[in-house]
């Protein structure tokens, strides 16, 4: 219990003193995960809309698999990305291993299924509402997707935030592909894992609280900017 209190104090101290290392790894966490979230959203939102709009043969299986992939074990993703980008792997020449770029790639793979699934669920309901109208108006596939994304933007923000949350708290994959190199690829979660391994629970918890605070702030900021959950309906 003391550890938890100490962790909170630690977090406070680190934040109040604007500890240099903390600022560095926090900014790196943010940069990696925000980039990954942006890229993943660009892939996942249209995909989710497409799954809502299109009726094809293996749609149900695709959706089930997508749901399952929400649980893609991060370590496995990390391993696969590692193998692909290892010097002896197919993309080895790019020299991306143990760089933030590799971490972004791994996070994109992990969060795309999550964002797609949540987006699909939200857009499916809007599609049920709009179906007749959009078909009747002869909207093209691309226009249907664009309309759903625009009219469902508030729910899609939630989907993106879920992806951000998953990414920022993730450690298994980025540890393998990033290597937790001090000043290069160390982020909040890998630092937490490091301190846990050293038995310094107070510091680990302190970093953990910083991480949670960061996630909460990003959510609050985005929610208040986008005005979700304000109106009762729409």
């Amino acid at each position: 219990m003391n550890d938890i209190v100490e962790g909170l104090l630690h977090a406070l101290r680190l934040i109040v003193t604007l500890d240099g290392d903390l600022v560095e790894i926090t900014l790196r966490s943010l940069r990696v995960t925000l980039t990954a979230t942006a890229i993943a959203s660009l892939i996942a939102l249209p995909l989710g809309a497409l799954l809502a709009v299109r009726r094809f043969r293996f749609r149900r299986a695709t959706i089930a698999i997508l749901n399952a992939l929400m649980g893609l074990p991060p370590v496995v993703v990390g391993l696969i990305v590692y193998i692909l980008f290892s010097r002896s792997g197919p993309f080895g020449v790019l020299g991306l291993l143990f760089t933030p770029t590799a971490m972004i790639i791994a996070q994109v793979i992990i969060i795309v299924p999550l964002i797609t699934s949540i987006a699909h669920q939200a857009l499916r309901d809007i599609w049920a509402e709009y179906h007749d109208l959009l078909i009747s108006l002869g909207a093209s596939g691309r226009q249907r997707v664009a309309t759903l994304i625009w009219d469902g933007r508030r729910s899609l923000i939630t989907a993106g935030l879920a992806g951000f949350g998953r990414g920022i708290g993730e450690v298994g994959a980025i540890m393998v592909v990033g290597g937790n190199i001090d000043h290069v690829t160390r982020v909040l979660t890998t630092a937490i894992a490091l301190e846990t391994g050293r038995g310094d629970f107070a510091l680990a918890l302190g970093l953990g609280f910083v991480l949670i605070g960061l996630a909460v702030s990003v959510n609050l900021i985005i929610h208040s900017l986008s005005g979700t959950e304000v109106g009762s309906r729409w």
Partner: protein
Amino acid sequence: MVGSVFPMTASGAVVRRGGQRLLGPIDLRLDGSGVTVIIGPNGSGKTTLLRLLHGLERCREGRVDWAVDRDSALSRQAFVFQTPIMMRRTVRENLVYPLRLRGASRADIAEKGDAWLKSVDLAAAGLQRASTLSAGERQKLSIARALIAAPELLILDEPSANLDSRSTREIERILTEQNKAGTRIIMATHDMGQARRLGDHVIFMLNGLVHEEGPAERFFKGAQTDAGRAFLAGDIVE
């Protein structure tokens, strides 16, 4: 636009859902002028028939053909739904959405938007969310949205169910005007007065089938079938 959707024909068209036959077999041939009104008791299949003719409902047996392919046919028609479907947008954005789909110019969109908002008495409500409109206002918006892209064929499902008498008259005036200007109209209605005022041609539906069909004048003067006469008299039709 080159070509026309007319004549449109249904031959032996059947609509099923959940193993049950909702409609048909329907054999119909509609050509390119006038106003067809579809009447019949609740649940007799009027909405389903309109959707079939529009291309929204695919038939399992038989077929529906337009003079052009289904996609072109859809794009030359507009449908006013019995329960208006409002997008999660403002009144104005709902209204001009068909123009946006067609990639109309900003100026065109602004101009037509203003004109139609005014003609259905919603000028003051342009920036309101469509979901806040009253039922009658939604119906009017839905009709304006259907007309804004100048369709060749306009299909309406009970367009004045929630309208006050003045709005009903106004909408009827607009429809008559459009029809004179060349827009073909097919509509379902429960308002026999409206059917008489607007219809050139009547389709009387019963139990998912076209029970009687013919010129409006003849039908309203003296329906050929017992059920038709009973329906006009407001009696039980089974």
